């Protein structure tokens, strides 16, 4: 079997592996983005909702 035939046969397998790897990286990217948004965004969200609370609600234990 010529070298070029071998390349043609292995290419679909490699493409599928690359696609799987790509999907995994994409999922990891979304997870990291979600984590970053939560860490940065939660205190901002808390600040915004605190504007609609009474002092007792802010200073007291969370309900």
């Amino acid at each position, binding site marked *: 079997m010529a070298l070029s035939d071998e390349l043609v046969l292995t290419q679909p397998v490699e493409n599928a592996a690359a696609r799987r790897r790509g999907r995994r990286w994409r999922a990891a990217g979304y997870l*990291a983005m979600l984590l970053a*948004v939560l860490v940065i965004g939660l205190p*901002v969200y808390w600040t915004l909702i605190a504007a609609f609370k009474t002092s007792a609600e802010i200073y007291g234990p969370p309900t």
Partner: protein
Amino acid sequence: MASLQQRIRSTPARRWGEWLLFVALIGPNLLLFGIFTYWPLIYNGYLSFVRWNFLRPVKPFVWFDNYLSVFSSRLFWEIVLNTLVFTVWSVGLTLVLGLALALLINQPLRYRNAARATLFSPVVMSGAVVAVVWSYIFDPRYGLIDQLLGLVGLNSPDWLGTTEWAMPAVIMVYVWKNLGYAVVIYLAGLQGIPRELYDAALVDGAGPWARFRHVTLPGLSPVAFFLSVTSVLATFQAFDIIKVLTDGGPVTATTTLIFYLYELGFVTYDAGKAGVVAVVLFLIMLVLTLIQVRYLERRVSYG
């Protein structure tokens, strides 16, 4: 003909006119800069050589007494160390995490614009508000961190009440507030790197790490240099978060030079020693910036 034009251009009247235009354009700025920047700098230098409490009409000249008094105090060196720890950790974390987040949200992911807006939102918040919010989050009884740690069976340390945890807490809040700025600047840098360089690297068989190492990092070097200089200067002057979050405490665990300057000047009304600390702070920032310009700028590629 050309020589005639040259002669017309270089007539004394024309040169005088150009000089007047130059003075008119630069003068107002120079005047304001002189009044509001250089004069306070010079006056502060003078204050560091006198004994004064802001009220007495006379300011006795004491030569280097204020300097000797400040430099011989153990507290001052502790505060210098606090300042260096605060600056190194804050700038280091901001630059590294900022780069990581910028690389992340530069990817073609959905909702990345919403993520960018969220990441930038703390930058536009007031430092005092941020500090108040985080003082609730750090609360060892009801705080958000205590509740999150409680989920995995851990207790929250008394972040703001112990000397071991107060500085990490202040650094965390400072980085949280300023990270978005670094992300936006890095993003601008990333989007300025020509796409063809990545394509060429791909053709040459470069993997993701090689592309990052040989295309992204050199392309980002001017931006990273700018960020490192401005972040160091801003961190040395960080005051609002420290004042509201810990008030320099517990004991002096989070007292930095700028906070010490404020205490000397506006709590104990010792203008001389406050002047000394301001001079020291100015010199530290000047030397650090010169070092950065001298050594970091060599590695910057503007090509």
